């Protein structure tokens, strides 16, 4: 009781007057949540990447900063903050300086339309999925100009590879997303999740809560696999990490970057990793909808629909991506393009046709 009184007085005394004075401040709350979420999740992801890779490679990984090394990424960030920010003398200074932010800002902006839980969405745009794809693909510009502005041949090669790769893999990615748009009949991310949570037009018995997930339809299943393969390429992860290809291009587009600018590229990469996993979870695997019970009673409440399921799903997907990264070698540039143009894109086009048949036959 005491605490509620204290909270009430805080709201009445501070928050309410602030809201009265500048009403638009309420829009900053979800933005703040997104920024905190991105920063925290990237720190956790970097630590997880180290631990998962260590586990796969029969090592132990970071151990000393905090319990089982959880603060390793904090120290990494501090180290990068204190490092000298070098800019090559021959570089295009302005472009060189803003390139990391061109890569980073879209990676954060797209979180605006991701529904984390029931009602946990910063802006439920009616063109949500379209916004997400178009803003999300802006990040590649940052990578390309970073490669060009560094005035380093290795960076240039990395930037050119990024251009070829990211533009190529956007096509199967979009085509697999189109399937979901057709089945859902909406571009709003929140509605897409609600459609799946309802389990309306599934082939499975309707009482199973997860029956409505799009990955349990034939076109949806194909599309989800295509999406995940294309997503690996979109976020430059092995086997498609050609733009940075350490053993070939030294460090690719970010060769000349150091200190915080490098950290921002790193941040963008991991933010994108969490993002593509989040998109896949949202549009194919039911987002925040629970696979056990929709609305539980008593103890079952914690297994009901909610934000927890979103994070469970992206954790599983990200673990899968890390697993792939630390197992497979890197493909060559021509093989990478071949996989897309001769494999993924025709398959995605056929899949769109299958989706048309599915929508006509089973109904949206």
């Amino acid at each position, binding site marked *: 009781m005491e605490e509620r009184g204290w909270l009430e007085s805080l709201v009445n005394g501070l928050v309410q007057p602030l809201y009265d004075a500048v009403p638009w401040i309420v829009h900053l709350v979800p933005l703040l949540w997104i920024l905190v979420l991105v920063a925290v999740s990237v720190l956790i992801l970097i630590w997880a990447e180290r631990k998962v890779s260590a586990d796969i490679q029969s090592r132990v990984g970071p151990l000393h900063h905090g319990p089982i090394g959880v603060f390793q990424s904090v120290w990494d960030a501090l180290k990068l903050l204190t490092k000298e920010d070098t800019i090559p003398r021959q570089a295009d200074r302005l472009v060189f300086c803003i390139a990391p932010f061109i890569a980073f800002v879209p990676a954060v902006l797209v979180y605006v339309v991701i529904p984390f839980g029931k009602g946990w969405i910063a802006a439920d745009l009616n063109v949500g999925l379209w916004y997400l794809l178009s803003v999300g693909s802006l990040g590649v510009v940052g990578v390309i100009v970073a490669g060009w502005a560094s005035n380093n041949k*290795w960076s240039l090669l990395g930037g050119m590879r990024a251009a070829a790769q990211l533009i190529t893999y956007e096509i199967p990615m979009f085509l697999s997303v189109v399937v979901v748009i057709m089945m859902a009949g909406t571009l709003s991310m929140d509605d897409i999740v609600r459609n799946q949570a309802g389990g309306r037009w599934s082939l499975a018995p309707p009482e199973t809560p997860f029956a409505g997930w799009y990955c349990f339809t034939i076109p949806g299943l194909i599309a989800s696999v295509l999406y995940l393969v294309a997503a690996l390429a979109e976020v430059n992860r092995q086997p498609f990490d050609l733009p940075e290809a350490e053993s070939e291009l030294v460090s690719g587009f970010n060769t000349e970057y150091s200190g915080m600018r490098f950290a921002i590229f790193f941040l963008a990469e991991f933010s994108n990793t969490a993002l593509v996993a989040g998109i896949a979870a949202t549009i194919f695997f039911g987002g925040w909808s629970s696979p056990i019970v929709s609305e539980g009673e008593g103890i079952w409440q914690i297994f009901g629909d909610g934000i927890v399921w979103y994070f469970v799903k992206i954790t599983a997907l990200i673990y899968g991506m890390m697993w792939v990264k630390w197992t497979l*070698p890197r*493909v060559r540039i021509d093989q990478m393009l071949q996989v897309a143009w001769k494999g993924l894109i025709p398959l995605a086009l056929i899949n769109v046709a299958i989706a048309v048949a599915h929508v006509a036959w089973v109904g949206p």
Partner: protein
Amino acid sequence: MQGHAEPVHHEEMLINMGPQHPSTHGVLRLLLRLRGEVIESARFVIGYLHRCHEQLTEQNGWIRAMPLPDRLDYLSPITSEWAMALAAERLAQVEVPERAEWLRVLSSELYRIASHLVFVGTFAMDVGATTMFLYTFRERELLLDIFEKLSGQRMTCHYIRVGGVGWDLPSGLDAEIRRVLKTVESRLPEYDDVFTNNRVARARIEGVGTMSAERCRAFGASGPVARASGVDFDLRRDAPYGVYDKLDFDVVTGERGDCLDRLTCRTMEIRESIKLCRQALDGLPEGDIRTKLPARFKTPEGVAYGAVEGGRGECGYFAIGDGGEAPYRLKIRSGCFSNLHLIEKALAGWKLADVVAILGSIDIVLGDVDR
């Protein structure tokens, strides 16, 4: 060797790879002429790690220069030591005790396994499979532990001496070596699962960087690189030294001479070396481990050539003696140096990503190339 003078044509990019590049296996410098991602032509520049090994030996004398060969091919030091000891022994006609000969076979084959494990790991890492590198180094660690117990050093062992070996096998090491060999043998199929039979890896290494047997012969290539191209030549069988003529082993050869062949050739050689190590442990006779040399060991006038099958090809020491404690002239023939010359022709026409694969498959150690 410097490629700056030639004009760069339109649409071509001259790119300098190394000496500071993560995948040139040390301080090799490659000048690549690129059209897009395709290599038009390649040249290599070496000499960044030249340490006057020949001159150092000529100045210091046989005995004091004996730790130097370790620093040539530092991933397979025992074989270089053996080549130098062999040259000195042939020049001075020193008899080596039977037990020492068997210990030499044992130690050099153990280190050959370690050396080939490094190759498998670094080659996989060049192609992008980082995990494989950690797997092979996990096994190599066991072998290095053996060498720490045998000679006190993990890498620069200084184990083989003129007239024998430095130390006898410590008690209990016999059982440990057998245990480690078993472990390494049991993990070889794992490498195939993770890397060699992986479809992405196959696409990267199968048919890439082919070299014909004729070209290998023309360039004087030897070791696993030449054998993978079908050159059936192994000094252990064709010019036996030590007690190799008493041992039973196969010489592994490939057919196409691509990166995959060079990889499988080495993994097969690991199996052969395991076989040889077991035979050496079984047949190890009792006796002395070193011939007593005079306090001032001198080599008479004359010439001698001691060559052994190193981890990366024929490792030979050609010495001219003048009656002193040091050779009048010493010439080191290194396998890596000859093998490296294949690269210029092998790279043309392949993509930038293949450069590291082909270079990695030749497996050079710059310490051995530059000497």
